[in-house]
């Protein structure tokens, strides 16, 4: 294998291979604790909170923006839903809707609209909103509060094992069906024959992936409800970015803002939409976190924005805009999650963990810039 081929492979699968390597290392050094169903189930629950936000952040960074306010919105979302459910005794659906509106849509709109309208970098706007949101959270409640039962349910409920099995099976068959349908449909349009390898490999990979999920969730308590929601969000976002106009416009705006404008794209609305979506996802993460822990803390989500941005960047999304995708971010989230989990099992202090995370971020960016400019 030549050097170029090697670089090409690492460009395409580098982070994925890194993830597998990290998993292998922890699997072989923790006496099987890491690979136990119980640990992996907990790991999935832990990564969902950060993962949710990282999905929105992918779109924002893809468009050449950044959102520093997400950590504060996690805290605000948690406290708000706590106030609405336990102090004001609102119906949970109303409480959640109001929280998503006030701690998600509103700050997201301010982040996007103001930075676009007055043409300054969202770094500044979101820094302001980050500070305001944290201040507001502490104003509402300087101490921790418990949340309503429904909120706890969202964070703690596990889907019964038979239902988990049905959900996973349906998901797998849906995936396989869509893959095959798309390939056949495409070959008909382009008048080429279907390449079997392009069908078998993704379907086989999906079979392995879903079996793994099945093993983890069926041998320990069933699938966490949070994980199901996260999976739906990931699927919807992937669809948004790859199959819709909005997604295409996001790539266009991040790749060349001026040219996008001159192509008749409404930059303002697409840009604002991405920030609103990120805000809503952050507020929702706040609700889920509060539910999982059974209560909301005003300082929850502190410095989450950095982990989120790290996950997105490790996943190959360019801070310059125009490049990136959901699958990459997903791998980035898993890398950070597995590292934290594995190092905790090793008994390393959180200070050491921080250093390692920092090193991983820098390595990921080096890998990206080394492999980015290869042409064949």
């Amino acid at each position, binding site marked *: 294998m030549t050097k170029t081929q090697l670089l090409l492979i690492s460009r395409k699968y580098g982070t994925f291979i890194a993830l597998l390597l990290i998993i292998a290392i922890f699997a072989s050094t923790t006496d099987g604790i890491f690979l136990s169903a119980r640990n992996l189930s907990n790991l999935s629950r832990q990564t969902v909170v950060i993962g949710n936000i990282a999905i929105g952040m992918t779109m924002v960074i893809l468009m050449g923006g950044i959102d520093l306010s997400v950590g504060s919105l996690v805290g605000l979302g948690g406290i708000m839903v706590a106030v609405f459910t336990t102090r004001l005794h609102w119906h949970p659906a109303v409480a959640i809707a109001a929280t998503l509106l006030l701690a998600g849509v509103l700050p997201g709109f301010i982040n996007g609209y103001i930075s676009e309208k007055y043409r300054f970098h969202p770094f500044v706007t979101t820094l302001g909103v980050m500070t305001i949101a944290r201040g507001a959270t502490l104003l509402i409640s300087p101490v921790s509060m418990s949340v309503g039962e429904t909120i706890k349910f969202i964070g703690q409920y596990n889907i019964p094992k038979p239902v988990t099995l049905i959900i996973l099976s349906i998901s797998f068959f849906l995936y396989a069906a869509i893959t095959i349908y798309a390939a056949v449909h495409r070959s008909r*349009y382009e008048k080429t024959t279907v390449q079997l390898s392009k069908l078998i490999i993704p379907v086989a990979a999906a079979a392995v992936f879903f079996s793994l999920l099945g093993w983890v969730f069926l041998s320990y308590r069933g699938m966490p409800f949070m994980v199901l929601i996260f999976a739906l969000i990931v699927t919807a976002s992937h669809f948004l970015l790859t199959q819709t106009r909005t997604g*295409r416009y996001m790539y266009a705006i991040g790749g*060349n803002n001026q*040219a996008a404008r*001159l192509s008749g794209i409404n930059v303002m609305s697409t840009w604002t939409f991405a920030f609103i979506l990120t805000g809503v996802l952050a507020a929702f993460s706040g609700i889920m976190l509060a539910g999982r822990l059974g209560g909301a803390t005003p300082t929850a989500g502190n410095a989450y924005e950095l982990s989120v941005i790290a996950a997105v960047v490790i996943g190959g999304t360019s801070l310059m805009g125009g490049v990136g995708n959901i699958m990459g971010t997903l791998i980035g989230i898993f890398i950070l999650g597995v590292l934290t989990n594995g190092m905790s099992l090793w008994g390393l202090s959180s200070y050491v963990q921080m250093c390692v995370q920092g090193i991983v971020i820098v390595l990921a960016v080096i890998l990206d810039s080394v492999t980015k400019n290869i042409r064949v």
Partner: protein
Amino acid sequence: MNSPVLEMRHITKKFPGVRALDDVTLEVQKGEILGLVGENGAGKSTLMKVLSGVYPHGTYDGEIFHKGETVRFHHINEAKQSGIGIIHQELNLIPELNIAENIFLNEEPTVWGSVINYSEMYLETHKILDNMGIDMNPRRKIAHLTMGKQQLVEIAKAIKDNIEILILDEPTSSLTEVEVDLLYELLRALKHKGVSCIFISHKFKEIFHICDRVSILKDGKYVGTYPIPDLNHDKMVSLMVGRNIKELFVKETADPGECVLEVNDLCVKNPTRPGSFLVDHVSFKARKGEILAFAGLMGSGRTETMMAIFGAYSKKSVSGDIRIHNNSTNIRNPADALKNGIALVTEDRKQLGLHLLMSIKENITLASLEKISFANVINKPKESQIVGEYIDSLKIKTPSDQIAVNTLSGGNQQKVVLGKSLATEPLVLILDEPTRGIDVGAKVEIFKIMNELVKNGVVVIMISSEMLEVLGMADRILVMHEGKITGELNRKEATEEKIMTYATGGTR
């Protein structure tokens, strides 16, 4: 004949997809002014960048001899040390520094190692300017000088060291007549001192006035070098353009039909100088079945006119009435323009036209995704099909529609931008410098596409700085000068001289 002070032999320079210079040879004698002419894209500037070390040795093939010895410049500074200085078309002065600071930039006289000796710097600047016969205060800021004076500062900067060869790339393009005369005097004085000049210009009058000999390039190839007395205007044109002028412009005339676009009193305010206009009460009509060309010099307001029609400026700075099929429009942004059937192919393809990292397919459909989407979801098979049709009809050379456009040649990139505009199915297609930086073959193809569009009833408006292109393709020519339309010519009466007269603000 003496041995030449400078020789360039068999210079070949390639860019991805284009051979900018192909086996070019150039000789400069001591104390002569050598004209260098050729169409836009003939390779003049590239050749001079090779000579002055902008393109370092190794990025081109061929050899350069300076006073009989091989030289290999790896950096502009090395060329400078050998006495070769270049003044680029765009001035390279720092506006916020003063004359002396610019002239001695990075070569400041110092004391104690690194403290600038200002008094000596101003004294030296005085001397240099005196020698050139210019009366200017060395402490004056560049930003406060006219373009002509700035040009003189550039020359002062270039000749302050012992210069032997001075390259001037279109030095007069932004000068007034008085300033041009001053420049001529300066060049003659330099010539007396034995300095050789290479003088690049599009203006034949200047070439005949100041040069001793002239070298001609065409499509990156060397045509020849001729003493000025052996040449006249027509001969020079035919050498520059070559025999294929007829083949190049495959103009098919169509009968002009109804008026599609009508622009009345269009004004664009100048953001940097309140009270003045970039576009000053421009009115015109464009009819079905015609190619309407906008001619004029750089900065005459042509691009600004089109950008304003396309809604690219904020509504606050634009006034005027734009009508399509006699219905008035309210164009606030490019999206509105596209909805009204106006499409624009911008002059700056890479900055404003393309998404370089995105694929051919994504670029072509970007402005017309609504047509192939159900709700918000893109119909991808249909997208591939439509893109396939454009790749075929525009003859875009590519193995697949998934290729990122930054790997394509200039000509193919231009076709992608064209495809993007065409996919919006416009009534009026505005092309701003549609053939800039693309090779001759691709130019002919673009011209053919323009003919085809006009035949299909699309109104084509073309901005072009290439005179031959304007004369060859346009049915009607509007000439702009300082934001105003100064003349209108039809295909039969148009000549290069008439256009130039209007373009420089003269009247017949």
